C-alpha cells in the first residue's frame, strides 16, 4: 500500500449538560458524554477518512495500522487533492467570566427557573426554558508534527412563552449563548421580554406579502449576511460550481456601503483557536465595499481555487472538516436608525430571527423574522407577525442603501452537510429597498 502523503487526527471528548424546564416542571436534567475521533489520510490521489467512537490513540505498529486503515479507503478516489501550505499556531481560548462547570447543576436549574418564571406574565399559558452546556476537549495532530490541544465550554439558554386568547396562540422566544462563561445570572429580563412579546403578538396582524422597503434589525441583518453571502462564499461550494459567487472575484455585486467579514479569531460564539486541520484563523473580507474579495477556505479549497486564506475548516466531533463560517458580520455604516426609518418612509421593520436557508447555486435565500412593525411616513406603526424575506444574492446586495453604526452579534448554530457548528452573525440596522416580503396576511 502507498504511504500517506499527509494524515491528521482530531479527537474530541467532552460532556453535554442540559436542563429542560417545562411549565416550571424539571422535565429532564443531567449530563451525557461523547468521545469521537476522525482520522484523515491523503493517499496518492484523495482522502480516506475513518471515524471511530471511543478512541484511544495507539502507538507504534498499531498506529501505523490505523493510518493504513484510513488510507485503504482513499483507494476509492481518483481526485488529485493538493493541500496549500499554511501557517499553524493556536490562539488562546478567551477567558470566562464564570466557568459553567464550576457551578452545580442544581444552581443552574434554579437560575433558569427564575428566567422561566419571569416569562409567566398574566396571559401566558405555557412556558419552556432550556439550558445547554457543551464542554469540548480537542486534541489535534498531523503528519507534519503539528499538535494542538485546547478546551472550550459553550453554554446558553433559551426561553419560550406562549400567550393564548380565544383559541389564538402566539409565541415569544429569547435565547442567548456564550463562549465567555455562565450567562444565566440576572437574565430574568429576557424571560419577561419573551412573555410580553407573545402577548403583543396576539394583537399583531399577519404581514401582507409583496415587494416593499425593509429595515432589518441587527439580528436579522446578521442572518442576512450569513444566508445571503456567507454560504455562497464557502470555498467548497465555489469549487464544486455550486455558488453564484464563483468567478466573481473583483466584481462589484453590492452597494459600496457593504463589507462582509468572517472571522473565527473573534472572541464570539463561533470562535476557533485553530481550525479543524491546524490552520491559523483570522479575518476574511468576503465582500469589501461591495466587491467580491475572497472566499472562505480549507487547505484543500485554497489550493484549488485561491483568493483568501485557509482557517475556516470546522467540524462537529467525529465528522470530517468542512468549509464553514464562524463569526460573520456586516461592518458598521455611518447612518442612524432614525435616518434609516426616514429614508425608508414606507415599508416594514423586521426584528428577530427564526432562521433561514439558502440555495447558493441558484443564489436564492429565505429567512424569517420573529416579528416586525409597519413603517409609514418614516414612523413605526402597528406590529406584524410571521413575516419572512426572500431574495436573490446578486440583485439584493445592490439594494442595501443605508447601514447604521450599531452592529450587534447574535449566537446560533449553522447546519451544513449534516453537521451543526456554533456561529455568530451580526450587522447594524440596514435598509433594503424593494425587498420581497412573505406573509399570509391579505389586508
Amino acid at each position: 500500500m502507498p504511504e500517506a502523503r499527509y494524515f491528521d487526527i482530531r479527537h474530541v471528548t467532552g460532556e453535554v449538560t442540559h436542563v429542560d424546564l417545562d411549565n416550571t416542571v424539571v422535565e429532564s436534567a443531567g449530563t451525557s458524554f461523547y468521545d469521537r475521533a476522525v482520522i484523515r489520510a491523503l493517499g496518492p490521489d484523495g482522502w480516506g477518512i475513518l471515524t471511530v467512537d471511543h478512541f484511544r490513540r495507539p502507538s507504534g505498529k498499531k498506529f501505523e495500522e490505523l493510518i493504513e486503515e484510513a488510507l485503504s479507503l482513499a483507494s476509492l478516489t481518483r481526485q488529485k487533492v493538493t493541500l496549500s501550505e499554511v501557517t499553524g499556531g493556536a490562539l488562546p481560548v478567551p477567558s470566562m467570566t464564570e466557568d459553567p462547570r464550576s457551578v452545580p447543576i442544581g444552581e443552574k436549574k434554579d437560575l433558569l427557573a427564575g428566567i422561566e418564571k419571569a416569562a409567566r406574565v398574566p396571559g401566558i399559558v405555557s412556558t419552556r426554558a432550556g439550558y445547554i452546556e457543551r464542554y469540548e476537549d480537542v486534541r489535534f495532530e498531523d503528519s507534519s508534527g503539528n499538535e494542538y490541544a485546547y478546551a472550550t465550554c459553550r453554554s446558553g439558554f433559551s426561553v419560550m412563552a406562549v400567550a393564548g386568547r380565544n383559541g389564538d396562540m402566539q409565541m415569544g422566544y429569547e435565547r442567548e449563548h456564550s463562549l465567555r462563561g455562565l450567562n444565566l445570572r440576572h437574565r430574568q429580563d429576557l424571560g419577561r421580554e419573551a412573555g410580553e412579546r407573545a402577548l403583543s403578538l396576539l394583537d399583531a396582524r399577519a404581514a401582507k406579502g409583496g415587494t416593499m422597503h425593509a429595515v432589518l434589525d441587527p439580528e436579522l441583518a446578521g442572518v442576512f449576511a450569513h444566508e445571503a453571502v456567507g454560504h455562497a462564499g464557502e470555498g467548497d461550494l465555489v469549487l464544486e460550481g455550486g455558488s453564484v459567487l464563483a468567478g466573481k472575484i473583483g466584481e462589484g455585486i453590492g452597494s459600496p456601503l457593504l463589507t462582509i467579514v468572517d472571522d473565527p479569531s473573534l472572541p464570539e460564539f463561533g470562535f476557533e483557536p485553530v481550525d479543524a486541520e491546524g490552520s491559523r484563523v483570522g479575518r476574511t473580507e468576503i465582500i469589501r465595499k461591495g466587491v467580491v474579495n475572497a472566499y472562505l477556505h480549507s487547505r484543500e479549497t485554497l489550493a484549488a481555487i485561491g483568493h483568501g486564506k485557509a482557517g475556516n475548516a470546522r467540524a462537529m466531533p467525529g465528522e470530517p472538516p468542512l468549509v464553514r463560517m464562524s463569526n460573520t458580520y456586516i461592518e458598521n455604516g455611518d447612518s442612524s436608525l432614525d435616518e434609516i426609518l426616514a429614508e425608508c418612509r414606507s415599508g416594514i421593520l423586521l426584528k428577530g430571527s427564526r432562521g433561514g436557508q439558502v440555495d447558493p447555486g441558484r443564489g436564492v435565500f429565505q429567512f424569517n423574522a420573529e416579528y416586525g412593525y409597519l413603517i409609514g411616513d418614516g414612523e413605526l406603526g402597528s406590529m406584524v407577525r410571521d413575516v419572512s424575506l426572500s431574495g436573490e444574492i446578486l440583485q439584493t446586495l445592490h439594494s442595501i442603501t443605508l447601514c447604521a453604526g450599531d452592529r450587534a452579534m447574535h449566537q446560533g448554530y449553522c447546519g451544513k452537510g449534516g453537521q451543526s457548528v456554533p456561529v455568530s452573525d451580526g450587522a447594524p440596522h440596514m435598509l433594503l429597498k424593494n425587498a420581497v416580503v412573505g406573509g399570509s396576511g391579505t389586508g
Partner: protein
Amino acid sequence: MRWWAAVELVERILQEGARLADEVEVYLSSGSSIAARLQRREIHYAAGSRHQGLSIRVIHKGCIGASGTQNPDQWRECLGAAVAGAKLATSQPWNGLPDPADLDQVPLNFDPDLRPEPESTRELLLGMIEGTAAYPVEITSGSAEISVYSEILANSHGLNYTSRGSNVSAAIETIREQSTGYEFDNSWKSDLDPLMIGEKAAELASTSTGGKEIATGEYNVVLSPLAFSQLLGAVFIPALSGRNVHAGRSRLANLLGQQVTDPGLSILDDPFHQRGLSATRWDAEGTTTDVLPYVKEGVLQMFAYDIKNGSRYGKKSTGSAVRAGPGGAPSIGTHNIRLEGPRTDVLEERAIFIHDVVGAHTANPLTGDFSVELSNASVFEGGVREYPIRKAMLSGNVFSMLEEIGGLSRQERVIGSFILPDIRLKNQRIIGNE
C-alpha cells in the same frame, strides 16, 4: 464490542442500576458505515465509521434521569449521571417500564445483502453520474452511504429485545446555468436505483431553467412529498405530540373528535410499513407498537404519548417513543407517517407543482403560519409542464391548507419518517415577482 460482551455489559448495568433506582433501562447500539462523496464528477473522499452508543435511563420514585456515552467502558459514570439527573427532575406519575411481550424479533428493516463496502458506494455514485447524462447539467456534489447497526434494549422488568438494521442512501446535486436540482433516496434494502436518482436531479435542474415570473395571487398548488414532508414535520407532527397538547403548545389541543382536515384525508403512523425506514415492533421504551390513526377522514382521533407523558396525563403510551432526547433518551416522535385519501391525477387540472421549498424550518410551529421560497416549481396543465417559475414564495398556514385538499397522487415516496404522495391544495397564496 462482541455480542456476548454486549449482553454481559447490559446485565451488569441492570444489576448495578437496580441497586440505585426503582427501574433501569439500557439501550446499547453499535454499527458501521461506509460513505463516499462526489465533488463534481470525481469521488472526493471515502469514509468509514465505527460507532457505538450506550444510553441509560433510571426511574426512582417518579423521577427520571438519563445519560448517554459513546464509550461503553464509561458505563459507571454514565449510570451515575443518570441517577444524578433523576435527583434533579421533578417527580411525576409513572406507570412503569413495560414488561416483556412475546414479539417476533426478526428485524423489519434489515437486509443482510446490504454491506458497508467501499465498492458498493462507488457503484451508487457512478450510477448517479450516468443517470445525470440524460440532461445537459453539471454535477456539483453527491454522496452515497451504506450502514448497518445492531441494538439491544433491556430493562429491569426482564425485557430484552435485540434488533438489527441496515440503510443505504444516495444523493446528488446538479446545476444548469443558475438552476439547481437535488435528488436523493434511501432505503433499508438494496433496491435503490442510482440511475433514476441521477436522472431526476438532472431533470430538476434542466427543466427549471428559463423560468418565468408569476403574479402574486391565489393558485391551486401541488406539493411534492419532499416539500409537503417539510411543512408537515415543522408544524403538524409536533402538534400531535401529547406533551405539546397538554403543555398548551398545540393548536390541535382541544379538537379531539372534531374535523381538522379535509374529510377525505386520513393521517396515520404505520410502524409496520414495508418500505418505512423506521419500521419497528416496539418503540424506544419497549412498548409494543401499533398503527395509530391520528386523523381519520378528517376527524382528529388521538395524540401521541410515551410512557412518561401517558402516565402524567392518564393515558396509555401509544408506542410513539423514539430516541431523540438528551443523551439518546426516549421522547415522543413518530415512525412512518402516511396519508390516505382520494387518489387522483393531481396535475391533470392546472396547478403550480412545487418540488421543494427553502426555509420550511422557519414556519411558526405553534400557529402553523409560514412563508417559504419555492424550488423547482412549474406550472402544469393536463399533466404537462407549461413553464417553470423563476422565483416566488408560498405563504400560508399548514393547518388551514389541509382543510380542503384536491386529492393525493397514486405514487408515494419515502422521505425520512414519512411515506407521502403528492398533495393537491386549493387556493394557496403565491407571492410572485411579476
